[in-house]
């Protein structure tokens, strides 16, 4: 499946089958979750990252079914196709953004998603305590969503942010690595 085709499907599904919700509601809800976590963890931003990832993971496990039911997607032939599908259909359908897929490693197992826009982070300025800028990955929930949803379709991935405009970086960039394909035809321990 070409990138163009993915873009077309994403556009189509987003237009016809998705209930829209006010963007500010999403931004403010997410913002208050992150802020509350920072408070609860008493400024332990590494722990906040972890919690956000975990919450995203649990969302991903569920969201994948909605994604598949709405888009009628078949299996991706390779990881490159998966990347295009995530960007042009997944992010398009749920957040109305299409992060750019780039920086592939030669083995085709690792790529970056560059977010030109990020509805979760509109209006956000990280706390000025000298640590948040270096430790907090504000949108870390998204990494979890990818990990959870891909795990449900037999791909174990590692996803983490490497750059964030909130920290003063040029771009917001997430690195996604395919760890392995989960072959669960046999239950563990019976081979």
């Amino acid at each position, binding site marked *: 499946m070409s990138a163009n085709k993915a873009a077309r499907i994403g556009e189509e599904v987003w237009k016809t089958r998705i209930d829209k919700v006010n963007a500010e509601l999403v931004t403010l809800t997410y913002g208050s979750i992150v802020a509350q976590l920072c408070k609860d963890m008493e400024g332990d931003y590494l722990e906040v990252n972890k919690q956000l990832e975990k919450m995203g993971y649990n969302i991903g496990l569920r969201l994948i079914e909605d994604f598949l*039911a*709405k888009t009628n997607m078949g299996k991706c032939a390779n990881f490159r196709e998966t990347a295009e599908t995530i960007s042009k259909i997944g992010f398009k359908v749920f957040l109305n953004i299409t992060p750019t897929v780039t920086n592939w490693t030669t083995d085709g197992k690792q790529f970056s998603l560059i977010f030109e826009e990020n509805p979760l982070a509109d209006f956000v300025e990280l706390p000025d305590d000298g640590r948040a800028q270096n430790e907090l990955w504000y949108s870390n929930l998204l990494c979890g969503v990818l990990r959870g949803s891909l795990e449900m379709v037999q791909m174990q991935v590692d996803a983490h942010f490497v750059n964030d405009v909130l920290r003063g970086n040029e771009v917001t960039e997430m690195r996604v690595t395919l760890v392995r394909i989960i072959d669960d035809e046999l239950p563990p321990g019976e081979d």
Partner: protein
Amino acid sequence: MGILAIMVLNKAGGLIYQRDFNEGLKKLSSNDYLVLAGTFHGVHAITSRVSPVPGSGGLEIMESEHFRMQCFQTLTGTKFLIFAQPHQPNIDVIVKRVYELYADYVMKNPFYQIEMPIRCEAFDRNLLAYIQPRQ
């Protein structure tokens, strides 16, 4: 014409949902339903392995004189089994819609535990509302 029953199997072959839509069906004990689901899961796995065509997805339709069973397996491994009258048209469409209802009213219910039996009243209600007018 009509839909007789719907079953949902989790990826391990466990029965997580079973519902009849027809009065005339023979009832099985809950244990027998579980056995039926588990057996089907096994047969499905075998059919996908013994198929002469590589990369085959396994048993999809089973027809008999009195009913037709269609299996739809999602990419996540969940199976939807629809039992219908032999000449029921558009089962594909029905299956897709049931999957959407499942995504909405089961998976999006934050208190539903994934892979566990489905006890979601809203799912029951919406499923019935969808199936009943088509009987």
